[in-house]
């Protein structure tokens, strides 16, 4: 054909250069991702230990149902459907990313093509998914910025959180568009019998983009196809590395976070074990252990007093705001926003993590109470609307209670009326100031 010996050599040369560049880009991307995920893991483990490894079958079941099956999203059907598009698209289009990575490393083109019919079905399915993801993301942007759904515009969403959301949605739109354009140019090259572009795939969506590219020469189209291909994979690798800096990290942590869900009834607050022994000693109970270490501190002043699961919760939060929109305190204008509790916890963990990165210790003279005010903490009714609403089983209430414990047992900073309630319980056995002797007075009135 027209390609002479030199151009074949040139082509092979270009091919090898591309492969080398690809392997380097991939290695750098994976390295940075690994490094940043390790940092998040380290930050999560700044929390105190808590055993969440019991009852494995129930844990797997919860993860499959809540994270994989998205069961809790169903409470709000419209976002559930749109999110379903993006979620299914994300999981399945990753199969195509796998092909792209293999092609990139080995210099092949559409390495899965020998699957024949199955490959065609898969590619057409991915194209339809790509369009659905695109539609999902456009509608998400519409809901956020045109319909202005209130939960996306609470005070804690100002600045980076909103920018973060916008970056995620626009990137996904751009990436999906790149797949379709890549396929459009590829199918023209296939039809023209260009070398290296074997007949493969079927393109129910991108076929409509063909007229935009059809007039270009084969060599220009090869450049286009390569640009879209590289743009797509580099975009994906950049997006991968954006995850650890973003609320979008939920796509990874949703799975472990639901696996390690609190399996107790929502109403059950854990009892502090070290206090149990103290109380037993005070009451002179025979099973008290006089040699047990007395508790060092009570409740949570900072993230290091919280459990690792509380911190994992905070990194899992994608700031959807379902918790806040269901919170009775927030709905009636109080300062408390369960989402902000999670965001503050994560921001504080990040702050301490950065100190560790810089080789400093954890004592920066600040704590979580610099982020979360007492007014927020005391507004909670412990109603569990937030934990019920969270699609990935995050528990803001657990953090609120631990911080209250710190305020009450370490700082004696409960609101006055609550101190009175404590005194009444202690003295009269009831939260009000009634004489204990009147407790059964009602039986005389039957």
């Amino acid at each position, binding site marked *: 054909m027209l390609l002479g010996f030199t151009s074949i050599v040139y082509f092979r040369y270009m091919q090898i250069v591309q492969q080398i560049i690809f392997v380097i880009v991939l290695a750098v991307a994976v390295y940075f991702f690994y490094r940043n995920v390790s940092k998040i893991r380290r930050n999560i483990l700044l929390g105190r230990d808590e055993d969440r490894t019991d009852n494995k079958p129930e844990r797997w079941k919860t993860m499959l149902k809540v994270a994989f099956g998205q069961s809790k999203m169903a409470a709000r059907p419209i976002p559930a459907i749109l999110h379903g598009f993006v979620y299914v698209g994300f999981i399945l289009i990753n199969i195509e990313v796998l092909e792209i990575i293999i092609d990139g490393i080995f210099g092949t083109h559409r390495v899965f093509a020998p699957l024949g019919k199955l490959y065609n079905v898969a590619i057409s399915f991915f194209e339809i998914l790509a369009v659905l993801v695109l539609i999902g993301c456009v509608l998400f942007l519409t809901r956020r910025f045109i319909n202005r759904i209130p939960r996306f515009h609470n005070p804690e969403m100002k600045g980076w959180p909103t920018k973060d959301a916008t970056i995620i949605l626009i990137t996904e739109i751009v990436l999906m568009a790149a797949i379709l354009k890549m396929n459009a140019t590829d199918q023209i090259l296939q039809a023209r019998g260009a070398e290296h572009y074997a007949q493969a795939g079927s393109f129910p969506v991108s076929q409509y983009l063909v007229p935009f590219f059809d007039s270009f020469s084969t060599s220009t189209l090869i450049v286009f196809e390569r640009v879209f291909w590289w743009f797509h994979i580099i975009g994906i690798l950049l997006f991968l590395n954006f995850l650890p800096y973003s609320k979008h990290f939920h796509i990874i942590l949703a799975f472990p976070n639901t696996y390690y869900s609190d399996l107790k009834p929502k109403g059950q607050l854990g009892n502090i074990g070290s206090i*149990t022994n103290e109380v037993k000693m005070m009451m002179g109970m025979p099973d008290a252990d006089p040699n047990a270490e007395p508790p060092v501190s009570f409740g949570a002043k900072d993230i290091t007093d919280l459990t690792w699961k509380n911190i994992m919760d905070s990194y899992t939060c994608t700031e959807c705001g379902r918790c806040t929109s269901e919170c009775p305190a927030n709905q*009636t204008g109080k300062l408390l926003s369960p989402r902000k509790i999670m965001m503050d916890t994560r921001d504080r963990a990040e702050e301490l993590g950065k100190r560790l990165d810089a080789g400093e210790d954890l004592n920066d003279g600040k704590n979580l109470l610099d982020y979360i005010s007492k007014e927020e903490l005391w507004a909670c009714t412990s109603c*569990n609307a937030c934990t019920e609403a969270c699609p990935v089983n995050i528990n803001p209430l657990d953090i609120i209670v631990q911080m209250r414990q710190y305020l009450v047992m370490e700082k004696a900073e409960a609101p006055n*009326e609550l101190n009175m*309630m404590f005194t009444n319980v202690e003295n009269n056995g009831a*939260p009000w100031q009634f004489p204990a002797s*009147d407790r059964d007075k009602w039986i005389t009135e039957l």
Partner: protein
Amino acid sequence: MSENIHVPTVAELNNKGETPEVLFWVGCAGSFDERAQKITKAMAKILAHIGVKFAILGKEETCTGDPAKRAGNEFLFQMQAMNNIAIMNGYGITKIITTCPHCFNTIKNEYPELGGNYDVIHHTTYIQELIDQGKLTFGKGDYKGKKITYHDSCYLGRANGIYDAPRRILEKLDAELVELKRCKAKGLCCGAGGAQIFKEAENGSKEINVERAEEALETKASVFAANCPFCMTMLRDGVKHFNKEDEVEVLDLAELVANANDL
């Protein structure tokens, strides 16, 4: 009926060498709050009516520690818990019925780890079981076709997943249940939990109980059914806020059942 029901204390039975089949855990609200006492009395009448051998702890009962725990005072909670557990275990209590979902939640979920293991039943579940067993029937039909709305308390609903039992009681009363916009797992709190009822609410645009009462009033129901003495207080205050106390009655399910049986 209802002449001279005698409610024995566990100590009284113990002196006779007996233990009750069920302990009726009254709770602080049910013991001291004037309105909640009516719920307590209704429940006592139901228990007497079906002839189960029950007793109360009387002056030996003290706060479960729930409000202290939710307000962050774990010490006080555990002291209360262990005192109560020592007393109940001393009497060999095995089964507890309570009209307060906070007491229910705490004794059922938080006492076992501290040595208190009992079969704890909220009164709505107990009543529903009595109906299922044919021990409680409603002949009169006081509430037949009456529009009733039902408020899920957080500690019975989300906290413990009990949504059906109270609704089945209303069904048996032949009432027309009108669900609130926010109900069951999405039910809106009355504003009392987490020790809120013992303090002024934080600054905001509205009281939570007013928001909830407003929603209940929208249903045009003439009875708001509750299952919790604290919700009772909050909902009644909310209804008063709208000056609707002459049109709307807030009643506990125990009261509805007792009324329907002329107890």
